[in-house]
């Protein structure tokens, strides 16, 4: 984007804070995400006026009001379709999509999968609190099976999506996961999302203290975090644990947890993370604490998968340019007259 080569004024996080007061509940995980975005933005090679935030409806989607950029707080579930129109119309804009788990995966599910497939260069931050916050606590498509909520006093009877798995199945070209409480990692992920050309899907675990408090505690709290999370990095072995003495290896196509202190296991036996390997990304996505692979597995955070594929808007523009430069622009008068006309004297 030409806008990236020209010198940019040095901005600060404050420059990205709008004049509206932030109206999330005290302790809401959304605050952290807002903060990290505002922290990362000044370093990105984008003019302030080129940022556009499109959000749907939900607590998370109020985000747009709090950024001093261009923004639209739209309707429930449709942000992806609107953002697609924005990006298709002006590829120069840096389009950021903010949406909740319900907004993205319940009512917005169709636009979600089609955005992944079309691969517009849009940065998609999905705030996953595994609940409908704004409507005061019904379960969402990411709520765990059996969850008791306002609309399921006896527990849900359906299996949740794994957003990362769904995005991969829908042909996403960038899939990553972060959490509200690990701000450094979250910032890194936001940066990676920006850097990827194509739709960057970043799931962010976000605590809703009012309607789903502690949903991600074991991943975010100091005492449980080391054993229940694994931070994946391209080219690095899958190591985790307080003393980095646990790892994940592949037994054929199945992941297994290995103890690096016992029967001579070494880091070399471990699975090396490869962002470019969709099969591994799939395995990581399905590798949950209660996973199909049995044993307790740590939850993965980081970039699961990256693929280089042309963006919709680039192919669209290329097509327009190619045909225009071949045929030249058709004069309007010629369009009006068409190719068969006759005279009446």
């Amino acid at each position: 984007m030409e806008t990236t080569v020209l010198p940019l004024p040095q901005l600060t996080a404050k420059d990205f804070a709008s004049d509206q007061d932030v109206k999330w509940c005290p302790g809401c995980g959304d605050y952290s995400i807002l903060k990290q975005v505002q922290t990362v933005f000044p370093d990105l090679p984008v003019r302030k006026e080129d940022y556009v935030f499109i959000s749907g409806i939900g607590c998370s989607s109020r985000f747009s009001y709090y950024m001093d950029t261009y923004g639209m707080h739209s309707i429930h579930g449709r942000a992806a379709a609107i953002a697609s129109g924005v990006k298709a119309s002006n590829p120069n804009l840096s389009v950021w999509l903010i949406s909740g788990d319900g907004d993205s995966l319940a009512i917005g599910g169709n636009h979600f999968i089609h955005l992944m497939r079309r691969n517009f260069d849009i940065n998609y931050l999905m705030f996953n609190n595994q609940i409908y916050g704004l409507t005061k606590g019904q379960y969402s498509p990411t709520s765990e099976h059996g969850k008791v909520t306002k609309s399921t006093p006896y527990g849900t009877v359906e299996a949740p999506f794994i957003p990362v798995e769904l995005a991969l199945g829908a042909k996403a070209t960038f899939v990553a996961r972060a959490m509200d409480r690990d701000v450094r990692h979250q910032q890194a992920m936001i940066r990676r999302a920006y850097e990827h050309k194509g739709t960057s899907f970043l799931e962010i675990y976000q605590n809703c203290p009012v309607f789903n408090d502690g949903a991600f505690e074991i991943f975010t709290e100091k005492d449980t975090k080391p054993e229940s999370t694994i931070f994946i990095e391209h080219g690095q072995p899958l190591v985790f644990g307080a003393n980095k003495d646990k790892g994940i290896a592949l037994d054929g196509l199945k992941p297994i947890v290995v103890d690096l202190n016992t029967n001579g296991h070494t880091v070399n036996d471990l699975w090396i993370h490869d962002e470019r390997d969709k099969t591994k990304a799939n395995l990581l996505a399905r590798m949950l604490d209660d996973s199909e692979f049995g044993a307790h597995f740590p939850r993965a955070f980081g970039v699961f998968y990256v693929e280089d594929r042309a963006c919709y808007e680039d192919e669209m523009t290329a097509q327009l340019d190619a045909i225009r430069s071949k045929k030249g622009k058709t004069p309007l008068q010629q369009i009006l007259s068409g190719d068969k006309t006759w005279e009446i004297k």
Partner: protein
Amino acid sequence: MEPQAEPLASAKKSIPVVKSEAVVVRFSGDSGDGMQLTGMQFSDAAAYFGNDLCTFPEYPAEIRAPIGTLAGVSGFQVQFGSSEISTPGDNYDVLVAMNAAALKGDIKRLKPGGIIVTNSAGFDKKNLKLAEYADGINPLEDGSLSDYRVINLDITKLTRETLKGSGLSTKEVERAKNMFVLGLIFWMFDRNLEYTINFLNEKFAKKPEIAAANVKTLQAGWNYGDTTELFTNRFAVEAAKLAPGTYRNITGNHAVAIGLIAAAEQAGLELFLGSYPITPASDILHELSKYKSNNVRTFQAEDEIAGICSAIGASYAGKLAVTTTSGPGVSLKAEAMGLALMLEIPLVIVNVQRGGPSTGLPTKTEQADLMQALYGRHGEAPLPVIAASSPADCFNAVYEASKLAIEHMTPVICLSDGYVANGSEPWKFPSVEDLPEIKQHFLQPEDLNGEKYEPYKRDEFLVRPWVKPGTPKLEHRIGGLEKKDVTGNVSYDAANHQHMVRTRQAKVDRIADVIPEQTVDNGRVGAKLCILGWGSTYGTIKTAMYQLLNEGYDVAHVHLRHLNPFPKNLGELLHSFDQVVIPEINNGQLMHLIRSKYMIPAIGYHKTMGLPFTTDEIKQKVYELIRK
């Protein structure tokens, strides 16, 4: 077609040529018989020759209903003449029936004494059975057609003979038979074949042998007419005395497409279409997708909601944004229309109406989405509504819709329907200089000269400025929650909500200040009876009017382009008439609006058969309501 015997210069043999002012021909056959193309060709040639005309294609909902069945009949009707033509005609002078089903379905509306050209091959046992004729009954033989002049030929065989040795496959030969018919009909109306020969050579440029075969068959048909003694006379329909100028033929959907391109260019904008295919609107998407060289962006969305939402995004980003669909799609777009209305951004929503409710009759026409256009959204959600009255008028309608959308920063609904969308007529297309100006300006920081930028600060028409993302210093947020006027910030304030609800209404109402006052299309102000129409009933009412006025009835025709807001003087005008009757292809939707708005006991006249009114139906209704 009242024949006025008067021989004319003709071809080889001299058969008397009868002059006619207007003729209706219906080409009817199986979906596979290529009647649409045949009819189109005949019409284009007639237009090219200088006739005025109006066409009406009718085809089944199935892609290919079973061959030979009544469900599979595909018809193309054209009325062409030497005077102004505004309808495809109620009844036809000539019926081409390629098979028994076609004859059975269409004989009803053939004029007494009319000509029938049949393909005997389409009347064998099998075809008669498929056409649901009783066993042993063949209409060509049982004398049931004695009131007509029947010309029954084995066109299939004649075509085969013509193409013997052409090396074409039987399938290809079979396909060419419609050209034989076309040639014959051309001869019948004393037309030369040049136009169609050029067409065929272009169309099959890549397959010269096919082109040659078709041309040969076409000529064979012509010669057949010329050499055989089949016809006692031929017909001449002179060129029409149309307004001088350059003309082209155009269908309603095509006119919508180029109308949008024209509006975008005149507004200095690029065009974006977000759409999902649906009959009968898809052709607009098809047509616009061809104009890549003019930077027209077409986005085939995953569904109608994404279609309008992508257009909302495009409008926000500074394009002339459009979404095209038909009834079911409009139902799905309702919520997003409400958002666009709250955002106060330009957006053109084209609804090519079809038979409803639900999936209804996808390939048939109807005007039953008017109330939905006005009220089909939750909350107080007023939008301007405009309707097209003929194929060519679709250009003007969509052009004006775009102009209003851009200049008044509002979504605008443009109503077309299957009848005008697929029908065609000669069009004296405008020259670019004559297109109305469209004022458009993206607010720039300089424009503020120091003042604070307020997204919802309005001008005298209550219109807010359009700001393109990417414009420095004007960053702002908008959304679907109620907003404080001027600042555009979210506001739950009670008084502000009422103010905004009324402002959004007033904003639409003020458009009445810029649209022309309503005029009488025909007849006199204060007449005994006013026929008030809107949309595609125009041509039929107009034709009926001519005749009624000639017959000395004191009637007037008022036709609405603007359904919301109504022209300022409409109430006054309507009150000037003793009676107002409103013919509609629905159950009385405009009637409902007129009654409640002007307290006029307007009389409704409703038809919901998936077909346009006939001229005669309108006239009968008038007779019923008024004495000379």
